[in-house]
């Protein structure tokens, strides 16, 4: 291939990339072209092979922000995905493989149909939703498909619905009814070696119907809301239905199904006049999904999510490892560098921990749940999807039956601890707002894109740009202590810098921060100067405080544009984030 074949005009590039994302095109094409010939806006420039490769990798980042992976969205036991063969380019809705509650021996003992061991496999009714190429009309059909085991690398939690978490308070009785029902029907379905398997299976199906009735009573209303929301998105004319690798691949479809206003906030927004009616009246006015925590209404990827440097999942996705699932990847990382591996993560890996004293290690693991809740709950969910034969003891032996049950119970207990504390938090907040509705206007419900990836060691300052309805977030991610300072001094330095930056942002808010990107950049330059001054004071040597012009150039390179008008600017220890021209509202009509 000769150099002349690489001649590309910038206009062509811009048009090509502009179809995907204008912001992305600006961000990615510019450095690629600069890298190639060092001159901006030059038509018909010769781009060399390295620049092309860089451009291609940047374009790939726009096209598949989550990496070379197939993404599917799971809502409870259903999976929604596009890009599956023989679906007419549409969306396939299929039941997921069952959570791994049994290993091969316990499954045999309990007569669980094992899809892996069964040569015919498990067949279920699936729905394919598609758009006809010629008539442009949307239709769907049912198909009886084989549900093969999936080689899931990891399951990233986006919305924690809080089923059976005791949230909201008004559902406590229904929770109890479902639990009582399970205790009762399980007694009637104990395996009896004197009876035939077929008759026992038939009885199990009947009792399962009864249990499902109670579950439906408890979560049926919420399930309808979630499914209605998904149906609305699929029927929306703005939703591209036909799959294409470049324009509308599986990742874009999942991002679309998660997006919108429903999961934009970490906790669901409240209906107007909340608290003026009784509990049931308030409940009925939530016409949108009433989840417990949202970790983000988007997929994790370049140009979409806001970076969390301590996230194990982010590291796993960046590693582009498709040979290992997330648990194996973390185990390998732990074996390679056991000293530098975070203790909280090793508590949650769970495999091989069966030799430990269960109660003491459970206390540590329950503490580990809160270090980075999104990763912790996602890891637990991933454990429930991995095949049983991937688990073994520290010496490589397969788990015995009692060890296996202990392993599963440990995961379920951690899930219960998570649900209990988050459910308690949700109930406490709702009770406070319903007893004192005037408080609703005095708080700001946090946005899930910022708080979804927050860890216990982070610090997030939420600064309202009064009188405008815009909010600026000042985030300090925990990245270890500053070199040359001990931890006490580091904390003091950070606190001082935070305080000064907070005052600065509050002062600037009066002059309209949030109205434009320019004003935010100006603010970031001022913040950087404040930070440099504070560091100079602490480090006591010639830390260069550069002039505004030089600093603004440096900061311009750290500006990152994310989906939904989010902009972040890295200012040393801190990240300033804002959703340009988007209001924050506590009440949803």
């Amino acid at each position, binding site marked *: 291939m000769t150099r002349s074949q690489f001649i590309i005009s910038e206009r062509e590039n811009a048009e090509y990339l502009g179809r995907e994302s204008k912001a992305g095109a600006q961000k990615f094409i510019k450095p690629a072209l600069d890298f190639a010939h060092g001159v901006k806006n030059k038509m018909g420039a010769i781009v060399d092979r390295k620049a092309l490769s860089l451009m291609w990798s940047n374009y790939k980042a726009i096209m598949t922000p989550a990496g070379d992976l197939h993404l599917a969205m799971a809502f409870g036991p259903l999976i929604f995905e596009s890009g599956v063969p023989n679906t007419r380019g549409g969306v396939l809705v299929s039941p997921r493989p069952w959570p791994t509650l049994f290993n091969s021996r316990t499954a045999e003992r309990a007569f669980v149909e094992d899809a892996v061991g069964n040569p015919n496999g498990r067949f279920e009714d699936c729905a394919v939703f598609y758009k006809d190429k010629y008539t442009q009309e949307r239709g769907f059909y049912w198909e009886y498909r084989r549900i093969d085991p999936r080689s899931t690398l990891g399951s990233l939690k986006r919305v924690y619905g809080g089923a059976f978490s005791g949230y909201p308070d008004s559902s406590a009785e229904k929770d109890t009814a479902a639990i009582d029902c399970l205790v009762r029907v399980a007694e009637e379905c104990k395996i009896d070696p004197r009876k035939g398997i077929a008759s026992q299976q038939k009885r199990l199906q009947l009792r399962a119907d009864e249990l499902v009735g109670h579950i439906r009573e408890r979560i049926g209303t919420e399930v309808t809301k979630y499914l209605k929301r998904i149906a609305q998105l699929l029927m929306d004319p703005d939703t591209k239905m036909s799959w294409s690798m470049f324009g509308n691949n599986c990742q874009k479809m999942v991002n679309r199904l998660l997006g919108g206003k429903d999961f934009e906030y970490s906790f669901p927004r409240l209906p107007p006049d909340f608290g003026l009616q009784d509990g049931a009246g308030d409940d009925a006015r939530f016409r949108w999904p009433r989840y417990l925590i949202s970790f983000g209404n988007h997929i994790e990827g370049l140009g979409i999510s806001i970076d969390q440097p301590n996230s194990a999942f982010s590291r796993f996705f960046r590693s582009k490892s498709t040979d290992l699932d997330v648990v194996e990847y973390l185990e390998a990382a732990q074996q390679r560098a056991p000293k530098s591996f975070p203790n909280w993560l090793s508590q949650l890996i769970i495999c091989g921990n069966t030799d430990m004293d269960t109660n003491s290690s*459970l206390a540590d693991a329950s503490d580990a749940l809160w270090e980075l809740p999104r990763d912790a709950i996602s890891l637990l969910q991933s454990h429930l999807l991995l095949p049983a034969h991937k688990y073994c003891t520290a010496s490589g032996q397969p788990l015995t039956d009692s060890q296996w049950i202990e392993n599963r*119970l440990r995961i379920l207990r951690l899930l219960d601890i998570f649900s209990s504390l988050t459910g308690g938090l949700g109930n406490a907040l709702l009770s406070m707002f319903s007893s004192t509705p005037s408080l609703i206007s005095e708080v700001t419900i946090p946005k899930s894109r910022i708080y979804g990836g927050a860890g216990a060691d982070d610090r997030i300052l939420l600064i309202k740009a009064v009188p405008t309805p815009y909010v600026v977030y000042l985030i300090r991610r925990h990245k270890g202590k500053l070199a040359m300072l001990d931890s006490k001094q580091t904390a003091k330095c950070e606190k001082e810098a935070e305080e000064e930056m907070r005052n600065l942002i509050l002062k600037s808010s009066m002059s309209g921060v949030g109205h434009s990107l320019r004003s935010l950049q100006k603010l970031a330059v001022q913040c950087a100067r404040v930070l440099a001054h504070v560091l100079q004071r602490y480090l006591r040597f010639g830390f260069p405080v550069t002039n505004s012009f030089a600093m603004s150039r440096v900061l311009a390179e750290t500006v990152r544009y994310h989906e939904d008008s989010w902009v972040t600017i890295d200012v040393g220890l801190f990240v300033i984030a804002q959703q340009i021209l988007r209001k924050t509202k506590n009440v949803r009509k």
Partner: protein
Amino acid sequence: MNPHPVPEVMPATMRSLCDRLEDMYWAAVKQEACNMIKFYNMILAVGCDLSGDDAALGSQTFRKLFGVWTGGQAGLFKGYDSSGLFRDVLERSGQRFSSDTPHRCARLVLQSSSLLDLDILHEPAFRLYPSYRRELPNVEEVYGDDSEAANPENVVLRGVRCSRCGLLIRSPFYYECQSGCKDAGSAKLPSVAISIDASGKRKARPHRSVESSSLSNVRVCPQCCATGIGADGCRQRDHFRRKFHYQPYMEGKPEFPPPPSSCCCYCCCRCCSCCWILKLTVLHFYRHDPIPVHH
């Protein structure tokens, strides 16, 4: 038997779509409910001790996270004193740990399906182009009776391959049969012999006379293992153990033959040290001598 041999296409409306999705959802829940009942009976039969979960209420990390979630919200604490909201959260959560063991077990089992959660499942996908930056393949030392392998001055190396997909295993973990079931295909695998010449330099060259006595055990890579364990030669699940790969260690940096002029891969880089260069050498020979893949 397939009850719907020819798909019947229906026009999509909001109503029909919602109804269809709901039907599918509850049918799937029923299947999982059957497993919940069986699992509940199993854990009660084994006997489980759920004491000590309430210790989680004293978690300092949760307190810190609570501070992050509610930080900068002075309005939130107007209805309480400074720590009142946190106390309220702990009280409400603590009530759930007081129920008896069977009811707690039932609650744990009901939560296993995460019925109201939205998750993103990440799965391997077709790659648009091969990535040369992926992990290099694992190699193992081969012992045999032929003159090269029997010579203690020589080391014969062979790639570790998956008996199911036939590809070299690049991940640090794999699953190996510990009962001695052999992978017949491994006899045909090319290998590399590294020897010391008269001047004391290590030299690598292709080695093709591995004897049947040095067949490797049946192995399965983690990616194949995700859809079930076992391969031709061993289908017994209980035989497999997970292995964390051992890297053979060699002193010195061996010289290996120059790549053919047609070599277009990045496997001939000479900048790495010891183990990496051994792996690269093996990879090099594999690239130019494709392995037969058994489907």
